[in-house]
């Protein structure tokens, strides 16, 4: 096995990326390869020191994150409910306005019909007056123009 491959296997080993079979291959290779063995030791020391310099997440930060996510979750829920209430309220307001608008329209039509009715009544009366004011018709009983019927043979 090449040096590069051994180094990659060692790296993978320290990052828990090797399967059991690969691990056994690595240890077989290391038993025969001093350079690899040396690198393995160095990596072991290196990962120990890395662990030493690793910072732990403070408890208050854990708590803070938890509080913020819970807040976000409840706020989202509340917003969801608030939105549905708002939507229902808007619909109700819309219906109120619509019914008011149609009531007004109805009233307007009613008024217009009454006025038209009045005008028609008035015109009816005027027409009656005109008819009544006309002179009476005279009908003659006698025949004034003689009708002569000739035989045309």
């Amino acid at each position, binding site marked *: 096995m090449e040096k590069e491959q051994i*180094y*990659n296997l060692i790296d993978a080993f320290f*990052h*828990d*990326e090797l399967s059991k079979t690969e691990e056994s291959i690595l240890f077989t290779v290391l038993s025969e390869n001093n350079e690899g063995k040396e690198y393995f030791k*160095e*990596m072991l*020391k*290196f*990962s120990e*020191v*890395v662990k*030493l*310099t*690793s*910072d*732990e*997440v*403070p408890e208050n*930060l*854990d708590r*803070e*994150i938890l509080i*913020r*996510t819970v807040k*976000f*979750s409840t706020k989202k*829920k509340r917003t969801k409910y608030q939105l549905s209430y708002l939507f229902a309220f808007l619909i109700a307001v819309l219906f109120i306005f619509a019914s008011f608008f149609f009531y007004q329209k109805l009233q307007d039509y009613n008024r217009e019909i009454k006025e038209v009715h009045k005008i028609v009544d008035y015109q009816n009366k005027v027409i009656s007056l005109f008819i009544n004011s006309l002179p009476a018709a005279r009908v003659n009983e006698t025949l004034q123009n003689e009708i002569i019927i000739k035989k045309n043979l």
Partner: protein
Amino acid sequence: MKLSENEKILLFGKYYEALKSGVYNYAVKMLSDKETASDVMQNVFVKFFEHIENIREEEKIKVWIFKSARNEIYGIYRKSGNSIFSKLDKTAIENISVGGFPHEKVEAAELANILLDEVNKLSETSREVILLREYAFLSYNEIAEITGVEINVVKSRLHKARKKLIDKISKLYR
């Protein structure tokens, strides 16, 4: 992913527990300031909770979280104009609990100190790769996806950076 509120909380808990240490260490060591790193971590995980349903595949969650942390960190650098090579926070060394003898504790602290100094001296790209691999335990593929470089570049940067660090540490304990 379409999830119920309970499923969301469970998924969040699972990934928070698994990744919190990696994200925190990555942020602390990139920013060298625990308070700012805590803010980054809060923002990242709250954002994760908010967008948990928008992440299409569960396998992408890890990368999504670290990408989000990376964006936050680089955003802070852009805003503050600070160099990424600021001094690393070494409070972790103060809390070292190793070995039964005082000399072991001193040696461990010294090694840790050297490691942090050397990490601090690394270039921005190498430092990031080392942090993502050694502290966050990400795979080469994940690091490549997060940093936006080829996997071979990740491997080579990591190998060089780690060699430098190992050489420094080896000198001390040999």
